[in-house]
């Protein structure tokens, strides 16, 4: 087992440069993960901040090169804790349109993107957590299978089987959502 910091000593402040590198490299990745794991947009910044506070607190215990893996595991727990605290399913996140989006898109595009993400998140939440994790990392974050295996600490074959299962479920759920559309929507076209 890797030696740990002496718990009797005064806790050291993390190396600012190392912490800054971790933030720079992984902030957006972590923020998006939090979103895909059910954190509403107006809570995502606070949740990401919480993740990196923990990273900062634990930096001296994190092996060099494992910052992303630690932040990733922490993000999953923060998302789970937050969802439990909010006490409800959150696919329909009714936040205001965010400042970034408002800078870039037309109102129609924003509405459409928002609704597409709501549906995506609803579908993702129906996947088993293990499958969802692999699916998000592969399909949305474009990580390779070896990168995912290293990040979540499972064999490559496990990544492949979880991804295969997740894809099947994703396609089934999307097809179901598409097929069973309400009559008033069809009539409205």
């Amino acid at each position, binding site marked *: 087992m890797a030696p740990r910091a002496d*718990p*009797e000593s005064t806790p050291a*402040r993390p190396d600012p440069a190392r912490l800054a590198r971790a*933030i720079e490299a992984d*902030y*957006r990745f972590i*923020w*998006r993960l939090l*979103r*895909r794991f059910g954190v509403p947009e*107006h*809570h*995502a*910044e*606070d949740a*990401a*901040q*919480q993740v*990196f506070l*923990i990273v*900062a*607190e634990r930096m001296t215990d994190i092996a060099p090169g*494992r910052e992303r893996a*630690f932040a*990733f*595991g922490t993000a999953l*727990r923060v998302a789970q804790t937050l969802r439990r*605290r909010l006490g409800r*399913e959150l*696919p*329909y996140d009714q*936040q*205001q*349109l965010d*400042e*970034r989006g408002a800078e870039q898109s037309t109102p129609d595009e924003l*509405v*459409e*993107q*928002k*609704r*597409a*993400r*709501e*549906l*995506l998140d609803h579908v993702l939440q129906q996947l088993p957590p*293990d499958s969802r994790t692999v699916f998000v990392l592969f399909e*949305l974050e*474009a990580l390779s299978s070896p990168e995912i295996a290293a990040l*979540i*600490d499972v064999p*490559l*074959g496990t990544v492949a089987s979880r991804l295969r299962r997740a894809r099947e479920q994703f*396609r089934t759920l*999307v097809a179901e*959502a*598409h097929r*069973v*559309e309400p009559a008033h*929507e069809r009539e409205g076209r």
Partner: protein
Amino acid sequence: MKDPTRLLDAPASELERHLLRAGAAEQPPSAAMKRLADTLGVSASIGEHTHAAPSKLPLLAANKGALAIGVATLATLAAVGWLATRSGVHPGPSGPTSEPQQSSNAPSENVVPMRGALPNMTTAAAHESNSLAQEIARIDAVRRDLAANRTKSAVAGLQDYQRDFPSGVLRQEAELLSIEAHRQAGDRRRARTLAFRFLANNPDSPHSARVRDLLQDLGPDAR
């Protein structure tokens, strides 16, 4: 082992691609990372190349998505409507809602300061950090007990932690310390049981590798 083709690049339905593009293109607010860096006091160490980068996906997505919007919009709206009907949740208007918004610069009250100043935390983050600071203090106390071989005190501290923070952010670390505490106390059987339970419940945890190391140390026949 070769990776399969991603759905965005594979024959997939337009709706599938549309949903994936929307998720991959989502970005945090442009100033969010700077606010975090300010909070942690590392703004000066953040480099210049902090432009908004989407996920590693080649996004064509975000732009090409505009072309697909017309096709996918009706399908998405219909599907969202169906989900709303099924789940009993109204998708809601597209504009602002009455949900209270967090003030990004609201002063925080009764916040236990963590290591380093956190002057710009949002109210919600400050509230969370207060609880988090308490969790960290408890866990650090347990670690000090273990370092000083006060295993009974460590186990008691962990039981208190688990009672007071059943959904705590550091509960996995507490479980890991619990395994270490029982091993240190000579209760290898209990330590093994806790280790197996941890791995079963948290296969993807960043602590899993350490728990497996502990299991190896405990040996195959610990009874």
